């Protein structure tokens, strides 16, 4: 990319705007260092792409002025030969991370016009490394959902379309046809990365909210080990399950981003005091000598034959790359999802008690304090959030606490023990499908029975319940041209092995071809 006249090289390309937004983080990093283009040009290209893509509703807030100011500061640093690991790299931020002076909604009405007077540790780490903020990304309300359909700001349109579908850009700017969901809760993050509206995005994962949307959109998403990344300043859903992580277009990019996001934090007592490894260096380790486990309990009834076939293919790829593949057993697998739907709502009912109309956000007037609370929360929370708060309240209430919450926490111990026993047998990582199906259409699931939507998380919740790291990597397309992902589950604090194994899958599967912009 280095040339004697970098500006001229750029103009020779047919559509420079498209080119810059199609880089990977690694390529952009190299290009900036070689002065082939500037951080300001990179930011401008993304701002233009975002403007054209408003119909996808991936961003709830665009911050172009901030982006340009940050890009200029990056250009100044680069000119001086300084610069951090993500200098000048434009990112989207899931609107669950508190950003100083910039509205943070958690996808809900109840936060009103809340402007946090503080920065989350994760985003502070990114800005310290020179990254540029393009805006805040849409999500399911309070991270509760698997399709980005529960957001108070409307659903996100996936940039993917089924072959032969009727989905297209309408004349009024809205999308016509029965568009697909990008997954959730980090639907905005996954859609924005897949649609080239940022080079990478931050996301969070409580039951699969990074890995499932990554799988639905042909992107890479990793949920690190519980305690690898600080939760300070990240709006809490379920404090023993939440973890922040990146969504990006390649395994290398995800590794680059995670290195900046992660690290000890005195303000989060659940954040481990462990140094952050060089995740990028790990991706080229290869898988020779690794033992990969295939858990038989993940073969579920009604599983799509295409997904089962892809799972076998993944195992073959790893074998061909030099890994030993063995069948393993995780006996309590099927109980992870019901246990999760006790633990997560219970913790959410506690975490969301703070939204009471008193100190920030929406306030509905009431005749007394209780009336104020009840009216504010009824008006401010959406249906899925209310449902989960109420289930959580019930399972924690007197007379039911032991039968539900304590029992579910005991199941967690058993689920974690299953993994520990498999790892003790010398297994380094476990290969599973990421999702039970490809992306579905908006409104197709969950309208009758909430549990139907919950089943989307069946392969991912086990990982949060055990506190382990998990990565979703694109592995192929289904018969309708939609991406399918594979999941790898690792040992605690061994994200390096996950990155190395995911890279082996990416090498074998090839980089997935993301959709061209049909929405403008």
């Amino acid at each position, binding site marked *: 990319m280095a040339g004697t006249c970098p500006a001229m090289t750029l103009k020779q390309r047919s559509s420079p705007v498209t080119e810059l937004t199609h880089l990977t983080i690694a390529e952009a990093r190299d290009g900036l260092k070689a002065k082939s283009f500037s951080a300001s040009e990179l930011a401008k290209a993304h701002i233009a792409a975002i403007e054209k893509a408003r119909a996808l509703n991936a961003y709830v807030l665009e911050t172009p002025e901030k982006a340009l100011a940050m890009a200029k500061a990056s250009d100044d640093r680069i000119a001086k030969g300084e610069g951090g690991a993500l200098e000048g790299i434009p990112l989207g931020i899931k609107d669950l991370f508190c950003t100083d002076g910039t509205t943070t909604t958690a996808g809900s009405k109840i936060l009103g016009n809340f*402007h946090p007077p503080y920065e989350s540790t994760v985003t502070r780490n990114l800005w310290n490394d020179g990254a540029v903020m393009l805006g805040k990304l849409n999500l399911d309300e309070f991270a509760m959902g698997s399709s980005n359909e529960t957001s108070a700001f409307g659903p996100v349109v996936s940039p993917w379309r089924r072959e032969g579908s009727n989905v297209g850009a309408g004349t009024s700017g809205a999308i016509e046809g029965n568009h697909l969901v990008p997954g959730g809760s980090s639907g905005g993050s996954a859609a924005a990365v897949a649609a080239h509206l940022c080079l990478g995005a931050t996301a969070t994962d409580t039951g699969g909210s990074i890995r499932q949307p990554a799988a639905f959109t042909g992107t890479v998403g990793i949920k690190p080990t519980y305690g690898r990344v600080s939760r300070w300043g990240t709006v809490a859903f379920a404090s023993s399950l939440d973890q922040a992580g990146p969504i990006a277009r390649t395994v290398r990019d995800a590794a680059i981003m995670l290195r900046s996001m992660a690290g000890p934090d005195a303000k989060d007592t659940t954040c481990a*005091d462990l140094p952050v490894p060089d995740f990028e260096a790990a991706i080229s380790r290869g898988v020779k000598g690794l033992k990969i486990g295939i858990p038989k309990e993940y073969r579920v009834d009604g599983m799509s034959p295409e997904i089962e076939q892809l799972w076998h293919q993944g195992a073959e790829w790893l074998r061909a790359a030099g890994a030993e593949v063995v069948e393993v057993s995780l006996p309590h697998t099927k109980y992870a999802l*019901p246990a999760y*739907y006790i633990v997560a709502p219970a913790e959410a009912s506690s975490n969301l008690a703070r939204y009471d109309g008193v100190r920030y956000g929406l306030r509905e007037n009431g005749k*007394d304090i209780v009336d104020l609370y009840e009216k504010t929360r009824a008006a401010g929370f959406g249906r899925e959030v209310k449902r989960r708060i109420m*289930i959580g309240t019930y399972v924690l209430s007197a007379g039911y606490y032991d039968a*539900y919450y304590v*029992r579910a926490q005991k199941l967690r111990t058993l689920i974690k023990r299953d993994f520990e026993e498999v790892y003790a047998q010398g297994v380094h990582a476990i290969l599973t499908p990421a999702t039970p199906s490809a992306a579905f259409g908006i409104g197709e699931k969950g309208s009758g029975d909430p549990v139907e939507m*919950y089943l989307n998380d069946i392969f991912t919740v086990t990982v949060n319940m055990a506190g382990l790291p998990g990565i979703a990597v694109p592995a192929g397309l289904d018969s309708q041209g939609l991406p399918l992902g594979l999941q790898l589950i690792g040992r605690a604090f061994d994200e390096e092995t996950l990155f190395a194994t995911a890279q082996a899958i990416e090498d074998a599967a090839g980089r997935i071809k993301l959709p061209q912009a049909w929405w403008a």
Partner: protein
Amino acid sequence: MSVDEKTVRRIAHLARIAVTDAEVPHLQGELNAILSFVEQLNEVDVEGVEPMTSVTPMIMKKREDGVTDGGYADKIVQNAPATEDNFFLVPKVIE
């Protein structure tokens, strides 16, 4: 385990979320769908199993018991709907 309408109203009150009469039956149905889904946990023998209290085994971090932050009350109240003299204002709490 299933909930009746009276229980739904009681839970809503505990959660401080107002529910209208019209909403109760639908909520009851949804909550019961979830509760029947989690029933299967009763199949498992959890005798002698400790509930998970710490996800990643660690010793809780401690620090010196001293003031290390604060002194910016105006920032803390700046997002509040109603404040006075850096207090949060609310309707009457005690009769």
